[in-house]
């Protein structure tokens, strides 16, 4: 299942990019804005990260993470294009075993005992970057959104047990619907699933030491490979409420649910739930 990652990566990304661009180019003229509208937003929120990585441990881990994001979104009535940088940080503990510690005791040369208790938890940092392009298709009151994204996600877990996905570069189509409401409000729901991805996870033996290699190089060399739907299944659902206010402001509330299953080297399941509030500066205007 593992294949050399790099030679095919560029080709896949170019293909994905070309698909997104041709989709955008084929858009019909219709409800175009007189002026393109841009939003740059900063969000803060809360994320619950739950992991069951049987390659690393028999225990499920979960944790409460503080989340933040920086988003740029542009739209012209036919196309929405979005670039997002997100990060979350916190600690995970084994579900149902919170507060565990491991005690290390040593007898020093002078005969005294030195004791250290270390909590069994994992500091967790997740980060993601994503570029998405969607076509807007008005159907009555509703605007359908169809497109896709190229994204990179990273999870860095440091602790006694280090369950989870390490990094993933993915190509995912997305579908969504937007319902405009009175008073410059809207509600939007979208879903995406990864079709193909280049994934790095700790290899079967859970070690990354290779002669002359750094830990990251060892991880990439030993634990990376291409995945398609047969081995990797994901589903992300995003619900948002948005309201413009004043001349330049936008308030957005997001609730996102993500599920991932990967089967190499052993089963990994991740469920992420994120609630986020963001304030955006709006540039440009509606027709």
């Amino acid at each position, binding site marked *: 299942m593992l294949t050399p990652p790099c030679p095919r990566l560029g080709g896949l990304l170019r293909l994905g990019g070309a698909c997104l661009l041709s989709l955008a180019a084929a858009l019909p003229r219709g409800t175009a804005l007189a002026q393109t509208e841009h939003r740059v937003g900063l969000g803060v929120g809360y994320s*619950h990260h739950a992991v*069951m990585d049987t390659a690393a441990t028999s225990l*499920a881990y979960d944790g409460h993470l503080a989340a933040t994001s920086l988003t740029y979104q542009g739209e012209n009535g036919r196309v929405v294009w979005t670039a997002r940088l997100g990060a979350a940080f916190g600690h995970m503990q084994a579900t*149902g075993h919170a*507060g565990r510690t491991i005690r290390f*005791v*040593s007898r020093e040369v002078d005969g005294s005992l030195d004791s250290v208790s270390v909590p069994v938890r994992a500091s967790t940092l997740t980060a993601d970057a994503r570029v998405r392009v969607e076509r807007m298709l008005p159907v009555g009151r509703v605007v359908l959104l169809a497109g896709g994204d190229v994204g990179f996600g990273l999870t860095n877990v440091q602790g006694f047990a280090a369950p989870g996905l390490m990094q993933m570069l993915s190509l995912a189509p997305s579908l969504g619907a937007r319902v405009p409401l009175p008073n410059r409000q809207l509600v939007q729901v979208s879903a995406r699933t990864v079709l193909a991805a280049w994934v790095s996870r700790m290899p079967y033996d859970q070690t990354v030491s*290779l002669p002359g290699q750094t830990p990251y190089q060892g991880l990439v060399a030993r634990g990376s490979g291409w995945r398609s739907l047969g081995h990797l299944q994901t589903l992300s659902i995003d619900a948002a409420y948005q309201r413009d206010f004043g001349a330049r402001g936008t308030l957005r509330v997001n609730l996102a649910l993500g599920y991932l299953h990967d089967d190499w080297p052993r089963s990994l399941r991740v*469920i992420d739930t994120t609630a986020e509030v963001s304030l955006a500066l709006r540039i440009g205007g509606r027709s």
Partner: protein
Amino acid sequence: MSHWRTSHWRVRRWVRALALGLTAALITSLSGCVLERRERSATPTHAFEQLWEDYRAYYGLFEVKGVDWDALHAEYAPRVNDQMSDAELYEVLVDMLTHLDDPHVTLYPAGNPELPTFSIDLVDGVFVEPPFDEALVEERYLHDAATPHPQLTYGHLAGGVGYIHLRSFDGKQRDYAEALDRALRALADAPGLVVDIRDNPGGFDPLAQYVAGRFTDTRRAYMTVRKRNGAELDEFGPTRTWYVEPTGARRFTGPIALLTTYATQSAGETFALAMRVNPQVVQVGSTTGGAFSDAILRETWNGWAYTISVGDYRAPDGTSFEGVGLAPDVWVENTYDEVRAGRDAVLEAATEWLLAGPP
């Protein structure tokens, strides 16, 4: 009417917010339930079976140790039942794991402070530090101790002999490189060098390989490694040969005394393997710990954790030193009383050997 509409909108807004919050809470709690359902089987029997299966799937030294793991299951499984206490389960697991005779096999009964950590190199959960005191070395024997990196101290001993203490191989190679450049520049004219790893518990093997490259003049094979790659007992990945070769801007290739004790373990020992292939290196002190392989940590359903040696590390001629350790060329041991009285006999012997010149 207008007031009624405003109130109506407010109510709808609150209902929407409440629905959103409830949905979030529901999804969050569901995600925990979905993933944790297997943990409800945290009985002693399941905990025993999980631990036994994990060692079967990951342990890389059954052949080296001559241990029949399946036979041990037949011996110990009947002693486990779901009515037994934590202490009784702990006793069975310790009895079974003792057969592996591996300092890298550790059982942490996390969450039960009454039970000590088990490993064959612990006494009732206590690791007894070797008779070595770095403060004594720095204060009594070094003229000009410097610590350019938290894991590295260097200086000059009597007769201008150089000294480098490597506490571990944890950290970034770039930081070690800078510290080693400083140390080796300062010690360039030394007639010999003491490399002290008596309290080095290990770290990252490629970093140890890099540091060893500062003390060699040519490329030499020093170790072969294969690691478990599947659940069957004989499933291993490819065997890789590790070489030590010149690294960095500055090196020391004169006579070297490498100081070791039983606390020299893991990457500390793979470093010793790499150093020993150099003809100008003599190992002084006592036998290393005998725990070469990378070890991983796993957990069983009752929350206890344990480490498993996943690799089969050998010298290039096929010899395994797991559980045996690397015996020194010159055997010298400190006593605790000597160290407490301010004497490091091992360091003195190494310095004398270097000043006398290689035989």
